[in-house]
């Protein structure tokens, strides 16, 4: 196998060392991203065993800034970028989506289905505007 190009390795190392760590936030804390402000309002964890879903975690967000079409665009941009990552403390992870509720595009939900009995939930949300590059939302539980 050919050894990797030294300049490429150096560039990767530099990029890794300069990468900004995600900013830690909690519930009810603003996450400014460009002209928008996302805020996790509430988190619920419950069983939907009667529908074959052992465990569901649902995070409610409010979004302000721009008009309702801008907000819908922003949520789609965040979701489609694949930078919405839900994790549990034991390493289980899944991709999340900001699901719009209502035509005003002010309330969004992220729903995931981690294993029953899991705990230590976090949600990493990439910032399409950079600075910080991402927020690490601590959901507790």
């Amino acid at each position, binding site marked *: 196998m050919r050894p990797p190009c030294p300049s490429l390795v150096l560039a990767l190392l530099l990029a890794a060392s300069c990468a900004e760590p995600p900013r830690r936030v909690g519930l009810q804390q603003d996450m400014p991203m460009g002209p928008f402000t996302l805020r996790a309002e509430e988190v619920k964890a419950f069983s939907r065993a009667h529908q074959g879903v052992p465990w569901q975690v649902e995070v409610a967000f409010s979004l302000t800034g721009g*008009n*309702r*079409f*801008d907000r*819908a*665009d922003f949520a*789609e941009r965040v979701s489609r970028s694949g930078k919405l990552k839900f994790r549990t403390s034991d390493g289980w992870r899944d991709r999340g989506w900001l699901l*719009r509720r209502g*035509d005003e*595009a002010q309330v969004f939900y992220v729903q995931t289905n981690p294993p029953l009995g899991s705990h230590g939930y976090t949600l990493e949300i990439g910032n399409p505007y950079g600075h910080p590059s991402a927020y690490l939302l601590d959901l507790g539980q």
Partner: protein
Amino acid sequence: MAACAPARKSPCAGLVYSDAGLTREQYAPCAKAMVVQLDRMHESLAVLGDAAQPKPARVKARQACFAATSALARLTAEAGGPEKLIHMRWEDATLSRFNYDVTAARDVYLMYCYYGLTGPEVAQMDSGHASARIYAAALP
């Protein structure tokens, strides 16, 4: 040279949404361009759906139908994507209805196009297409 030719401006690009959505004046060129693509799909299906037509003509019609579908999908994406066009209410209910009709007609035509079905119903104009044409003709 093709690379130096000025890019053709799409009638659906650069639309600026307000809280109300788009106005009829803003949306008219884009809406009309969408209906043109539906017309192209419908024309192709008239040939594709006719079993008496020679096979090369039917194959060509199917390709034309797919090309029109892609062009319509591109226009929809340029206008803001299905989320804004179909899943969000606009203040002008006529435009919301138009968006719904275009999408519904496109889905029906795409199904005929995809499966290459034959029969008189394939050549018939979809009701969504018919009403989208009426709405588009009434736009300024």
